[in-house]
């Protein structure tokens, strides 16, 4: 067998073994050592990251992509389900990125959760999540992908509801599960369609056979699945609610890895997606709507984690727009760069929150640049990368996406929404940095704040390096599959940058107005719309259960009895006959005028019939 594919499979199996070994060691009857989380789990993920560099180097050197089918699992005469692993460009690059980010987050979590009595269980859950995520990205068939898909959903539920004594946390965990379930309906429908029409769940067979079919229905199913998992508009409220979980959970699941699973699914299915204009247009419009709506919601939030959550949702909308532009590789590039700076933003927020004794409201932060200079600098670097500052990580993906959007013959409305959302990104990023790092502290100086702990600083430092150079590294080593448009008018080329700078200047102006004593509160209606998240959760979370309950009540109390007695049975006879009876009765009341009018009416009718 070819040496490269052997080495790739070996390294992936090694990665799985490295990740599984702490979990297997936790099954032993002896109690776990106190620093099990720090020594075993974090070290396992670190070594798994270094192991995953090997397939990456092999791929960069030789350009080989491998598909390994390693175990025939459930096979019938007509349908095969195997364990098969796909090492294409997407999984080879995503695995090291995910492992690097997870390594940093685990190191941070060992500080953040050090007072938690169940810290070992927390790390175990994070590890199981990571394994499910890697199963998802390396899957070569839909069944294996579904295993990973559900696995990350379940771990998300367990981790959001980590502090289960809190009612809001339980509500948020349930909300995440229910919204993901609605998305799963789409995925299962797509899987069923593919199984019945294409007779296989293996990706190669699906892509080859699907050329002759009209794929609109399964693709809409996949888009619904991505809407649920990646928090697109309509199924998005679970993502800001998921901030009830501890900050390491928000950093790992709800910014870098789990929420991109939906977009990753669409990227995997891009050979099926690229010929179907309907599906592409749906992606484009849905993504544009999502990115603008969530960016609007982020403008007036006051909880730092919620702002970053809405920022994640906005970037996911941007990734969906990219898929709608038929540029899956650009979407993947944005997934990788976004993982770095978003995880770093969450870690910086977590560090600040922990230093301020669980204070999450930016109205009670301030002046952190003097107290935690490194953390606030990394917050600024992350925000700059997010807004697409030239030559940081976000620039390579975001600018390329906006250029592709500008130069394509597509929906101008989607373009406008996306550009507006890009400027909003600059505004809320500046808002966070302004209220957190700048100015004077607005909190009580109760406990001394410092950055002396290396378990906090080193992860943030690593992710900062990633935020700065990841974009450059990935773009300089990967050949793009689609040629980017190289020549365009100057205005289109700098559109993203100009829109961001306009947003930045507007935000600076608004921030300076906040400080002056013009009026205490803003013009209320747009602020209310944004602050109350467009009233979407309030309306939907009440309307849909209410409709279901009314339906249930109608069925239970009225449908059976009322239908059989009044609509179909005895009373119906009376109801049907009564108008006829009353009309006939009214005619024969003995009034001459009635008889005369009837006579003339029938006379006229008979005349008409005779003449024609």
């Amino acid at each position, binding site marked *: 067998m070819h040496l490269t594919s052997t080495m790739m499979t070996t390294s992936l199996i090694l990665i799985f073994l490295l990740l599984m070994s702490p979990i297997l060691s936790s099954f032993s009857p002896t109690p776990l050592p106190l620093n099990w989380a720090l020594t075993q789990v974090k070290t396992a993920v670190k070594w798994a990251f270094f192991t995953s560099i090997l397939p990456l180097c092999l791929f960069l050197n030789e350009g080989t992509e491998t598909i390994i089918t390693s175990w025939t699992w459930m096979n019938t005469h007509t349908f095969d389900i195997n364990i098969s692993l796909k090492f294409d460009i997407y999984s080879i690059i995503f695995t090291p990125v995910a492992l690097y980010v997870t390594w940093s987050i685990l190191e941070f979590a060992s500080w953040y959760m050090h*007072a*938690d*009595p169940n810290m070992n269980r927390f790390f175990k859950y994070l590890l199981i999540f990571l394994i499910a995520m890697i199963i998802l990205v390396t899957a070569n068939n839909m069944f294996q992908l579904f295993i990973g898909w559900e696995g990350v959903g379940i771990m998300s539920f367990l981790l959001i509801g980590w*502090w*289960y*004594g*809190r*009612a809001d*946390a339980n509500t948020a965990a349930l909300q995440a599960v229910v919204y993901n379930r609605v998305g799963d309906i789409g995925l299962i429908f797509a899987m069923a369609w593919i199984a019945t029409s294409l007779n296989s769940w293996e990706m190669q067979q699906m892509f080859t056979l699907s050329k002759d079919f009209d794929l609109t229905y399964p693709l809409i199913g996949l888009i619904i699945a991505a809407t649920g998992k990646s928090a697109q508009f309509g199924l998005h409220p679970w993502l800001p609610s998921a901030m009830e979980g501890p900050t390491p959970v928000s950093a790992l699941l709800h910014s870098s890895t789990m929420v991109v699973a939906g977009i990753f699914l669409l990227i995997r299915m891009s050979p099926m997606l690229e010929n179907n204009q309907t599906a592409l247009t749906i992606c484009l419009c849905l993504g544009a709507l999502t990115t603008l709506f969530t960016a609007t919601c982020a403008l007036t*939030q*006051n*909880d730092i984690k919620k702002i970053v959550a809405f920022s994640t949702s906005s970037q996911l909308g941007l990734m969906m727009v990219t898929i709608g532009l038929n540029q899956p590789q650009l979407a993947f590039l944005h997934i990788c760069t976004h993982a770095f700076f978003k995880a770093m933003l969450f870690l910086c927020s977590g560090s600040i929150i922990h230093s301020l*004794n*669980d*204070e*999450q*409201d930016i*109205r*009670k932060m301030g002046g952190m640049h003097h107290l935690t200079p490194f953390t606030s600098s990394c917050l600024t670097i992350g925000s700059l990368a997010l807004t697409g500052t030239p030559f940081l990580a976000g620039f390579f993906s975001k600018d390329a996406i906006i250029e592709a959007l500008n130069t394509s013959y597509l929906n101008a409305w989607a373009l406008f929404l996306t550009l507006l959302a890009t400027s909003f990104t600059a505004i809320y990023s500046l808002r966070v940095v302004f*209220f957190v790092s700048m*100015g*004077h502290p*607005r909190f009580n100086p109760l406990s001394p704040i410092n950055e002396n702990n290396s378990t906090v600083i080193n992860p943030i430092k690593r992710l900062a390096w990633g935020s700065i150079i990841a974009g450059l590294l990935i773009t300089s080593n990967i050949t793009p599959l689609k040629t980017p448009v190289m020549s365009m008018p100057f205005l289109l080329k700098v559109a993203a940058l100009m829109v961001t700078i306009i947003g930045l200047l507007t935000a600076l102006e608004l921030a300076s107005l*906040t*400080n*002056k*004593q013009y009026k*205490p*509160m803003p013009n*209320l209606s747009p*602020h*209310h719309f944004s*602050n*109350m998240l467009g009233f979407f959760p309030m309306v939907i979370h009440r309307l849909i259960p209410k409709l279901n309950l009314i339906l249930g009540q109608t069925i239970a109390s009225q449908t059976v009895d009322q239908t059989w007695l009044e609509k179909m049975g005895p009373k119906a006879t009376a109801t049907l006959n009564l108008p006829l009876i009353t009309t006939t009765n009214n005619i024969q009341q003995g009034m001459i005028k009635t008889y005369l009018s009837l006579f003339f009416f029938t006379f006229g009718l008979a005349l008409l019939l005779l003449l024609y």
Partner: protein
Amino acid sequence: MASAYLTHQQKVLRLYKKSLRHLESWCIFRDKYRFYACLLRARFDENKTEKDMVKATMMLKAGEEEFWTNQHPQPYIFPDSPGGTSYERYECYKVPEWVLDHWHPSEKAMYPDYFSKREQWKKLRNQSWEKEVAQLEAETPAVGPKSEALPPARKEGDLPPLWWQFVTRPRERPT
């Protein structure tokens, strides 16, 4: 004596405090907040010597309506207050003390001093339980207790009623 009805003074002061809190949510910077807080205080102080209760109640009503229209949709809530971000966060670690009885003997053997003392305390609790119940039954009026406060021990050598629940209560902040 407190009753279910609020006095006018209580209502005005509640309106003042919640107006200040919502003003603090709107005016983020402290100097600007202090400016508007002083203006608000002046508005309240202007009418504080009003003797006509009808007029005062109408002003209070107008004030409440003004508060309703100008309130902040996401007022600042302290993290440990109801609705805050870390409210009830550590409830899951507040395990009741009877769980200690269900520990495995090998686990109990790790803390022999504590568990031997615990046996003595449990014996003491069994002895004093009847007396606690008797005291509570004697002191509670027929319609039911007036408040949640427990009475102290009345007799010499007695323990206060329901002392075990108090002594073994979980810490406010377990971690």
